[in-house]
């Protein structure tokens, strides 16, 4: 096996996010090249590449070490998406329709301008929940599923926000600023934890990673 074969094998085995993958591969390749260079400079410059790879350990074992950490992060992000979906659902169903201002139309006869947006938001919300459950259950595609779940949740939040704007134009009287601010904070709270976990900016307790 050559150094390039080893890095390619590691790339195949890694189940982490794209930026983490790039970093790991760059670090490993740098280490192996330094190790090979040192071997070439030694008194017995034979089979240096093979020796460097043997000292480094199997690509599968190394990938497993990284994958374990990433799986915890991914599952926490998936759980955060589920929680976020709940928060978003409550913010839509309770805040805008009941607590802020009731709609002047019957529940099952909303104007088309708002009905399709709330329907699409609900579909995105269901997709987010489904994908998050998949990320919690799966192994191979869990990072991708958690990422897609977050995208679905963000789309749901976007459609809900658009729905709010359209609805506000149809319901008499503008909502108070504090009401809008409260809704924005709730929606940010729904999205932010999962997004930060997925990009690696939110610290995971050490005990979960070891």
């Amino acid at each position, binding site marked *: 096996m050559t150094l390039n074969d080893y890095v390619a094998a590691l790339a195949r085995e890694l189940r982490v996010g794209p930026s983490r993958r790039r970093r790991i591969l760059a670090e490993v390749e740098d280490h192996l090249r*330094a190790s090979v260079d040192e071997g070439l400079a030694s008194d017995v410059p034979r089979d240096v590449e093979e020796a460097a790879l043997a000292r480094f350990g199997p690509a599968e074992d190394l990938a497993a070490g990284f994958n374990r950490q990433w799986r915890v992060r991914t599952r926490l992000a998936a759980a955060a998406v589920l929680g976020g979906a709940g928060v978003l659902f409550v913010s839509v169903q309770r805040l805008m329709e009941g607590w802020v201002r009731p709609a002047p139309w019957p529940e099952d006869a909303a104007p088309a301008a708002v009905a399709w947006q709330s329907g699409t938001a609900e579909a995105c919300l269901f997709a987010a929940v489904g994908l998050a459950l998949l990320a919690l259950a799966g192994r191979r595609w869990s990072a991708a599923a958690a990422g897609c779940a977050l995208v679905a949740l963000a789309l749901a939040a976007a459609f809900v926000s658009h729905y709010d704007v359209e609805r506000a134009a149809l319901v008499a009287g503008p909502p108070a600023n504090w009401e809008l601010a409260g809704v924005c904070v709730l929606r940010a709270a729904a999205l932010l934890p999962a997004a930060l976990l997925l990009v690696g900016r939110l610290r995971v307790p*050490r005990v979960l990673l*070891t």
Partner: protein
Amino acid sequence: MSELHGHLDLLVLAVLADAPAHGYAVIEELRRRSAGAFDLPEGTVYPALHRLETSGFLTSRWEAHGRRRRVYRLTRRGRGRLERGRSDWSAFAGAVTTVVGEAR
């Protein structure tokens, strides 16, 4: 060397306490300080470095000194973790030595 894995984080923190270093230098220093006793597969150190960084005990950035390398530094939190780890290890090692080392 499997018994070493539970202590790898502490060993890595101890190596980085003296000076920032990249992964290759960390494993070399571990080998040197242990006089070759800690001859781990070199790759083992990288998941540990990433885990310690995720926990906030290390920071890292790419630096180019001829070759572009990811250099790791101990944070203040990492230094505190190292001090606690040293203290725990001393107490543990002392107790084990007392029990195991006693001739009956």
